């Protein structure tokens, strides 16, 4: 059986190995991804974002229980930050999902952000596609919640859940514009803490502002209070996600089309950037032009970045064969 066949059958080891190869940007992954792509598009992808410590992993753990009760299989991607100094990482989100370790219907993969070396971003989209092709009905993607990752995940997901906790004060404001607009569901976790009602009210205000600003696409973001560790509010959150899924499926205003468009766009741009850059650099290398040498030119101000890139592209695109 080929790797593709194994993955389509839900083989855990083959899936795990492919995900790793994608993580490490090994050659051959594109061939496999190519063959898997037609088999994607079935899973409902839900992104979870929020500052460290708000309880994303605990919520994901609890939602996985709900999914399993409905006999849905679950894929989980849990992201933790890579140390900028050493390049290593401790991936500890899995601990909060222990109850699922022996459930064949749940596949959990821990990822490190790995930073953005050489301008190449690691592809969460590809990993989502693999879990999709593997047959997972629901894919939960949990991010570190700072910077680029939030937007990336929101673009890759059907439903985006933004999580905060009471008493973060200014951090509700830190749920910045742009993020507000992609949030479908807002969760105030650790709702037993002081200040929970206040946080909910602040979110309601922001939601209202957001609704007035954008063309209402008919979805009014829901705000749910939860206590993930105690399991409170989880059913409400699950139902909210169902609601959003049904809303998308209805597609009476093209909302599903919009989401699919957004996802496809995100995926395409990502692969395009990736491949184009990779190919370009490879070509330059084969001609004996190293990235380092280009960097030196900019550093010494021999050339400015804009002219340099124009020249490179002009040269390369002239006889650009893939």
């Amino acid at each position: 059986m080929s790797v593709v066949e194994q993955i389509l059958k839900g083989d855990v080891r083959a899936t795990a190995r492919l995900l790793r190869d994608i993580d490490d940007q090994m050659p051959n992954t594109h061939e496999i991804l190519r063959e898997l792509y037609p088999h994607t598009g079935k899973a409902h992808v839900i992104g979870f974002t929020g500052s460290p410590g708000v309880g994303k992993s605990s919520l994901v753990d609890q939602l996985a229980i709900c999914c399993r009760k409905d006999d849905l299989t679950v894929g989980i991607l849990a992201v933790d930050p890579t140390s900028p100094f050493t390049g290593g990482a401790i991936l500890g989100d899995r601990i909060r999902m222990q109850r699922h370790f022996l459930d064949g219907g749940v596949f959990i993969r821990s990822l490190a952000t790995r930073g953005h070396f050489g301008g190449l971003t690691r592809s969460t989209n590809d990993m989502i596609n693999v879990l999709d092709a593997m047959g997972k009905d629901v894919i939960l993607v949990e991010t570190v919640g700072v910077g680029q990752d939030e937007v990336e995940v929101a673009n890759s997901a059907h439903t985006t859940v933004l999580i905060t906790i009471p008493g973060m004060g200014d951090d509700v404001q830190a749920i910045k514009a742009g993020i507000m607009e992609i949030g479908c569901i807002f969760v105030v976790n650790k709702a037993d803490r002081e200040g929970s009602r206040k946080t909910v009210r602040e979110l309601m205000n922001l939601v209202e502002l957001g609704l007035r600003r954008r063309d209402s696409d008919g979805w009014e973001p829901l705000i749910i209070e939860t206590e993930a560790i105690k399991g409170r509010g989880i059913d409400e959150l699950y139902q909210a996600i169902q609601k959003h899924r049904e809303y998308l499926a209805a597609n009476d205003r093209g909302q599903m089309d919009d989401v699919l468009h957004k996802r496809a766009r995100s995926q395409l741009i990502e692969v395009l950037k990736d491949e184009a850059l990779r190919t370009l650099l490879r070509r330059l290398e084969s001609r004996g032009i190293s990235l380092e040498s280009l960097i030196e030119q900019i550093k010494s101000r021999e050339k400015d970045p804009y002219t340099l890139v124009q020249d490179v592209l002009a040269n390369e695109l002239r006889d650009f064969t893939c």
Partner: protein
Amino acid sequence: MSQDRKLRILVAKPGLDGHDRGARVIARAFRDAGFEVVYTGCHQTPEQIVSTAIQEDVDLIGLSILSGAHTYSFPRIMELLKEHRAQDIQVIGGGIFPLEDIPKLKSVGIKEIFEPGAKLQDIVDWIRSNITPRTGMAA
């Protein structure tokens, strides 16, 4: 554009022993050495450990134990890896072991045992010299 593959290591404590000072210190040391560490902490059964190791496609499992229960859990983990055809995942142990148990553990496939007093740097160096990240898949 191949980078050196990052080593992925699972650090876990099998059995009921909750003394995790060593496991936490070693996890940090591994991170500081540039490895990616999946840390599942204490109270893991052999089944949970192997399931995690396979899903996370780790190169190495580091087991920390001080309770004497290694006589059951270590061979059981090796057995499960075999059952799942994942013997390419290497296993090392750290903690407290009676001297006569060490050759027994190695004979079931534990690659190395690190005892109290082992230096973090020595463990990291050993891993760098003895554990290679898995090769990529063929299509």
